[in-house]
């Protein structure tokens, strides 16, 4: 093992959406920051968008599923006991490399679920505590959209105007207006005009889910990380952390990590920040058990890995006679409907869902099933069905609010390991009856959207297996050390110089995409560290 004399003020583990805001904030305050990231930087040429096999890469090197993708930097997941597969990307930028950029904020009620609706738990902070960080984050990364949505609290003018709707969007608007339901152009982490340090406007190429080679998507690798590195953060890529070390006092003292050649190194630090997502963070905490912490680090509550929440999601696709050409424009982040967001006791379930309106995938993805796993038949009908669907379809996602349940959890697999021999995560998850009721209701509404505007065929996939984009709840925050892992700043109750800043923090998960909230929480935690770092023991 090789060590280093470099004692960082703060070691961040993970260079994704949450690590970036922390790294930049701490570096701006003059702190010595090191980040260990198991992936590397992706260059423009690595993206497949200019190649004939661009769609094939959805199944291969740019798959959203790490078990399918199997890049060297990925780790395997045991998903035998879950109907939903966790999705992620391991690189500088993390899972923002392959996201849709849909960038809504939680609503105030999302932080008071127990008080308002009698389920889940309340957060130890409010929307209004977080609001300045939402604002700061949006302004820094570049968010397109339009302020004034009556379904959400006011906010400042967006960085760039809303993305265009195009024919695929127009048909949604026709339907939602006819139904009298809410709609609004999404806040999108995707700039519609040139922004920041030379980032060009989106040119509507479509497949954001395989990344954005232009830098128009406000992914962490083109926003926070270049700025953080320019401020002196030492970002070590292809560095896979095996465990967090603790000293005799039980405080975090750094981490052991493997480089890409399998050599092990030690990085020392006064404080450690975990930014490794809702599966990677509990995996690392559980892998960091020791004589002092036999059940895993920061786990005196027994809650590390528990209360795993996804956003169970399914898709509905409407097929139309008109040639919509809905492949024009960003795939996902342009329009949303929050008509069914808040609890309505008449519906037979608590909480709600968002309809996220989606454009269209290309012909290969259409042929192998599209968003609803509806494979185009082989044989004499193949061309007819493909032509009916391709360029004639649009889809919507029914994204459901999951509730925290302790039996839904991340543990360590006793047999499966990554290529460095580190135990892999095992996922145990089952969808609640409440979530099942929401998704069934949501599907009926999805069909209604398409039937209202004359879809001749409606295809459905009521629970998409590959819908675990959002990984939340596995190191939840709270005021009580018996019922939470970290406090309202993300600081471990057990290890006072250890912080969590990713989706693991979530107490509840709303029914919308979480990255905006993750980054706001990360900024808030970083400000606290800057203000208090002299008092943090090490």
């Amino acid at each position: 093992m090789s060590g280093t004399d470099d004692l960082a003020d703060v070691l961040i583990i993970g260079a994704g959406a949450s690590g970036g805001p922390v790294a930049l904030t701490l570096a701006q305050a003059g702190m010595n920051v090191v980040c260990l990231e198991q992936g590397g930087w992706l260059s423009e040429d690595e993206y497949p968008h200019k190649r004939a096999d661009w769609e094939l890469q959805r199944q291969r090197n740019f798959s959203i599923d790490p078990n399918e993708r199997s890049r060297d930097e990925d780790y395997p997941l045991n998903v035998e006991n879950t109907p939903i597969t966790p999705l992620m990307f391991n690189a500088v930028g993390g899972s923002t490399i392959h996201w849709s950029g849909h960038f809504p904020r939680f609503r105030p009620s999302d932080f008071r679920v127990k008080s308002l609706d009698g389920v889940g738990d309340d957060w130890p902070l409010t929307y209004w505590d977080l609001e300045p960080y939402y604002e700061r984050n949006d302004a820094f990364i570049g968010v397109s959209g339009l302020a004034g949505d009556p379904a959400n609290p006011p906010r400042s003018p967006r960085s760039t105007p809303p993305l265009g709707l195009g024919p695929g969007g127009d048909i949604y608007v026709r339907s939602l207006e006819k139904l009298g339901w809410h709609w609004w152009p999404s806040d999108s982490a995707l700039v519609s005009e040139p922004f920041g340090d030379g980032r060009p406007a989106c040119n509507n190429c479509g497949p954001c889910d395989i990344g954005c080679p232009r830098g128009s998507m406000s992914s962490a690798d083109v926003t926070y990380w270049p700025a953080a590195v320019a401020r002196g953060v030492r970002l070590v890529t292809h560095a896979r952390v095996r465990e967090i070390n603790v000293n005799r006092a039980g405080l975090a003292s750094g981490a052991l990590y493997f480089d890409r050649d399998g050599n092990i190194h030690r990085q020392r630090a006064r404080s450690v920040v975990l930014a490794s997502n809702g599966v990677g963070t509990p995996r690392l905490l559980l892998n960091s058990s020791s004589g002092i912490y036999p059940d895993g680090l920061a786990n005196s509550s027994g809650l590390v890995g528990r209360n795993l929440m996804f956003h169970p999601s399914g898709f509905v696709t409407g097929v139309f006679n008109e040639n919509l050409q809905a492949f024009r424009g960003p795939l996902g982040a342009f329009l949303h409907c929050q008509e069914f967001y808040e609890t309505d006791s008449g519906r037979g379930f608590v909480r709600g869902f968002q309809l996220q309106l989606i454009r269209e995938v290309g012909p290969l993805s259409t042929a192998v099933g599209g968003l609803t796993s509806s494979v185009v038949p082989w044989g004499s009908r193949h061309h007819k069905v493909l032509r009916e669907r391709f360029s004639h379809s649009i889809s919507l996602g029914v994204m459901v609010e999951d509730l925290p349940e302790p039996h839904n959890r991340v543990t360590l697999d006793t047999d499966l390991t990554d290529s460095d021999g580190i135990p892999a995560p095992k996922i145990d998850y089952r969808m609640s009856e409440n979530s099942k009721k929401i998704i069934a209701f949501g599907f009926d509404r999805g069909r209604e959207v398409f039937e209202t505007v004359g879809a001749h065929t409606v295809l459905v996939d009521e629970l998409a297996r590959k819908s675990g984009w959002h990984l939340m709840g596995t190191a939840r925050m709270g005021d009580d050390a018996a019922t939470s892992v970290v406090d309202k700043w993300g600081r471990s109750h057990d290890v006072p110089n250890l912080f969590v800043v990713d989706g693991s923090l979530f107490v509840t998960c709303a029914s919308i995409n979480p990255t905006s909230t993750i980054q706001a929480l990360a900024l808030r935690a970083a400000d606290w560290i800057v203000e208090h770092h002299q008092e943090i023991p090490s």
Partner: protein
Amino acid sequence: MSRTAHESHGLAGAQLELLTAVQDRLIPRHDDMPGAGELGGADVVSGYMGELPELHSDIAAALDSIEAKSKTQESGDADLPGFGRLEESRKDEILREVEIGMPREFAVLVTQTYNSYYTNPVIQEILGPGALPPQPLGHTMPDFDESALDDVKKRAKTWRNA
């Protein structure tokens, strides 16, 4: 000289011919669209099998089953010509039998055939802009028209303060 992955796990000779014939039934020629086999899809899928050895057993098993059924259906004589020389309707019957009997393996064969077909620049040109590589040109879109929101803006606020 060490063998490449392609040589180790791809197809050769009669297997390639069989796959070509099968692909021409999975995606047959129609109007301006060539068949998947005639477009050279078998070589492409063979290349995939070289890159991803896990594909090999499924595709090879499906092809073996197709060929075995072809010979059996023809006359019961294993020496007679196989799948490629059957009537097209008979070919489709055999493929449906294999699809039912070996659903996983057959699905892999179909998926990889689709992959070879729709990544072919000839097909992408025929299908047009949504099929072609999306960069560097992207697509044109009209700007957002805020007047579309006039009715939505009249709605009362629906978020709950807390």
